[in-house]
């Protein structure tokens, strides 16, 4: 049996309510590891032949929650969520921190594969070897706090009757979708705890499309055994020691970014990215730190860094709002990008987006996009039902709730920024796609390219994860490290050079960074690329058009010390050309036949024939 793995996966078909254990042979595990890599393999094997026809929100899509061999053992426990993405129509590996991954492994499973669609709302309950599909009608429509409270109570009762006399029963780990996911909003996240989100990809909507409210898991077994336990223990100490040196990340997380990224780097979205600079000291790190943070160090299983902070509003009209950090991305997207520079409002809206089950980045982006259309007079009070001025937290709350429930204009905006832009362009007879700040349907992270101090010009444009700021591309060799972290399924903030040795000591299989970068990791990226380019069924991407930044990234910065600067088209084109070449993609960005065949990906090559001739 492969070491570091629990040894089996659960497959649940919600249409037939059939539950079974499945396994993958060592060859597959060696090559695709787990998490993002294995997701790509599973999705491609099962759906690759008819990828363009699969509706990500239809019953034929597959919802995956996968761990990897390092999950729970290496610092920073995560789980990787995947499937065909309702945002990009490709495959995104979306990881989220928390105890779900380690609980699942202690319950004896490496991952969960969910197919079909339940007739009524359900959740999947797993306790050691026991797997059950249970009704979720009583939690359907509930926001995060209620959902967690009800499911935690219920699970502890069931566990108490299963493990009588065993002592106080702990809580299970839960992944769930909020109301936004239930209503198949494409910017919906898969949530864990109150505010942990697998945000990119829109997989909350995939859960909703399957009538799957949550997966609840408790494991009482040990972490799976490893090939060289004594070496693993030594390496664990070493990695921890190096992580404990990440002082700034430990003390502040990314929660000082809301001011710093704007003021110092000029790369923070402000009013739907019309600007990327601000110098609003009301929004500074110390403000968040000392007025709101009730916990300065908040972790998940096996993490010594604790980059998360918990914010609580203790006074004023927003009293009672609770969220983590907010981290930089939330600060930016629910702050300056909505014209908000009041931390109270930002924290309140961050909590709201979490509770409704949005990706704060993706969903926050749509809010700002709508506000800009309102500012420009393209969307009016009649269209929205109210005024939507920058800085108006109440109006943004109203809009977010309408999107989560698909009410009124919310039904269009629930399709995500780009798809909504296409519809509104049609409706209004003006092209509003230029205000949609996304790459291939995925709203981009809160790091701009124009000042030249933050994200590089091709970071989003050429990434198979599109707008995902955690997986931007730059150099075809080193970029594969993140693919490994997402496949071994550990937190990207806990990366260390020792991870290759760690992997070897856990699995007993040798793997060097070189081998990963040139072969294994590359294979995963090629398949992701192929799925993205095949796309469909509602939108198809053409690399010559869509391997690009949002139009706004080519407008000159209107303010700040880098005023006038913008993304240089020429530099972009040259970097893109070099990147394609380094990846083994042709001049249109399609993986070359010879490259795919050398890697043993004949089926991918055949599938890509469909788009090779197109121009």
């Amino acid at each position, binding site marked *: 049996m492969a070491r570091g793995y629990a040894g089996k996966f659960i497959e649940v078909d919600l249409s037939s309510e059939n539950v079974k254990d499945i396994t993958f042979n060592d060859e597959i595990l060696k090559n695709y590891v787990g998490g993002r890599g294995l997701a790509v393999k599973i999705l491609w094997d099962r759906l690759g032949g008819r990828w363009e026809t699969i509706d990500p929100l239809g019953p034929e899509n597959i919802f995956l929650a996968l761990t990897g061999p390092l999950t729970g053992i290496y610092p920073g426990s995560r789980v990787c969520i995947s499937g065909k993405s309702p945002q990009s129509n490709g495959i995104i590996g979306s990881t989220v921190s928390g105890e779900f991954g380690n609980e699942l492994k202690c319950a004896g499973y490496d991952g969960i594969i969910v197919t079909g669609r339940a007739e009524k709302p359900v959740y999947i309950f797993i306790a050691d070897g026991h797997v059950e599909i249970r009704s979720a009608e009583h939690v359907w429509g509930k926001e995060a*706090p209620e959902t967690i409270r009800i499911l935690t109570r219920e699970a502890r009762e069931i566990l108490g009757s299963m493990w009588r006399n*065993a*002592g*106080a029963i702990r809580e299970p780990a839960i992944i769930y979708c909020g109301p936004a996911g239930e209503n198949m909003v494409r910017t919906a996240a898969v949530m864990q705890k109150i505010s942990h989100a697998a945000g990119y990809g829109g997989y909350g909507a995939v859960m909703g499309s399957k009538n799957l409210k949550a997966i609840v898991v408790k494991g009482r077994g040990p972490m799976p055994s490893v090939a060289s336990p004594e070496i693993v223990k030594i390496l664990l100490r070493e990695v921890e020691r190096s992580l404990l040196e990440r002082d700034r990340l430990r003390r502040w997380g990314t929660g000082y970014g809301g001011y710093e990224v704007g003021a110092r780097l000029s790369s923070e979205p402000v009013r739907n990215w019309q600007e990327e600079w601000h110098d609003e000291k009301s929004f500074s790190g110390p403000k968040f730190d000392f007025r709101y943070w009730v916990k300065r160090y*908040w972790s998940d299983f096996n993490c010594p860094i604790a980059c998360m902070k918990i914010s609580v509003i203790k006074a004023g009209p927003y009293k009672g709002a609770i969220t983590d950090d907010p981290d930089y991305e939330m600060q930016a997207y629910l702050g300056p990008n909505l014209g908000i520079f009041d931390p109270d409002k930002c924290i309140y809206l961050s909590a709201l987006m979490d509770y409704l089950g949005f990706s704060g980045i993706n969903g926050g982006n749509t809010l700002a996009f709508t506000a800009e259309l309102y500012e420009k007079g393209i969307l009016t009070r009649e269209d929205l039902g109210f005024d939507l001025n920058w800085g108006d937290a109440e109006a943004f709350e109203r809009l977010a709730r309408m999107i989560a429930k698909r009410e009124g204009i919310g039904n269009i905006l629930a399709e995500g920024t780009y798809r909504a832009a296409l519809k509104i362009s049609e409706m209004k007879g003006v092209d509003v796609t230029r205000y949609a700040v996304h790459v291939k349907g995925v709203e981009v992270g809160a790091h701009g390219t124009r000042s030249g101090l933050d994200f590089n010009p091709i970071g989003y444009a050429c990434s198979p994860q599109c707008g995902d700021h955690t997986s931007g591309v730059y150099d075809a060799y080193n970029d594969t490290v993140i693919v490994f972290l997402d496949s071994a399924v550990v937190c990207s903030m806990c990366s260390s050079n020792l991870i290759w040795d760690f992997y070897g000591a856990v699995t007993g299989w040798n793997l060097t960074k070189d081998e990963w970068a040139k072969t294994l990791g590359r294979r995963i990226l090629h398949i992701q690329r192929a799925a993205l380019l095949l796309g469909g069924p509602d939108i198809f991407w053409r690399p010559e058009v869509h391997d690009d930044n949002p139009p706004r990234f080519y407008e000159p910065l209107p303010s700040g010390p880098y005023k006038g600067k913008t993304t240089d088209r020429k530099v972009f084109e040259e970097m893109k050309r070099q990147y394609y070449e380094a990846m083994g993609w042709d001049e249109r960005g399609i993986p070359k036949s010879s490259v795919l065949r050398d890697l043993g990906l004949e089926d991918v090559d055949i599938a890509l024939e469909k788009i090779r001739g197109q121009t």
Partner: protein
Amino acid sequence: MGKREFIVWVARDYLKCTGCRRCEIACSIFHEGWIWPEASRIRVFMLVPGVEIPHFCAQCHDYPCVNACPVRALSVDDDTGAVLVDREKCTGCGACIRECPGKIPFLHPGDGKATICDLCGGDPQCARVCQEARFNALWVVREDKSRWGGFSRKLFAQMPEDLTRDVAVNLYGEKAEEWI
């Protein structure tokens, strides 16, 4: 009396616990040889997200668990004050759990025997890793044996639900009631 002048006690600050659960990892590696959260003698309860309660033996002065055991499987370590479990004798009846004011002991998921913090023989591994990370949720305090009974350790043997309620209100304010 044992060799030490002081007994060790692990002071706990639930407000500071990060939920990293590295104490569980350290504990289970020390006692089980491998990572096994549900076999860790210290178990972090997170009944409300963000409210993490490291739950482990408080070494009550009157040791209700020890006295409750019908087969005398439990004893007090003369040296550290920890409760020791004789796994040969323990029948897994759960009497110690029922008598503990905090329902802290549990039956080991492997052998089904009562499992209680033994203070690692005087060098608690949980507090070490917690201190190393400067989280300070766990802190070893030395208690003078001659002043044994100087403060009421038993008050720390509380149900996770009760501790959660207090800490949640402290952190989150009145709204916390909605969470539990």
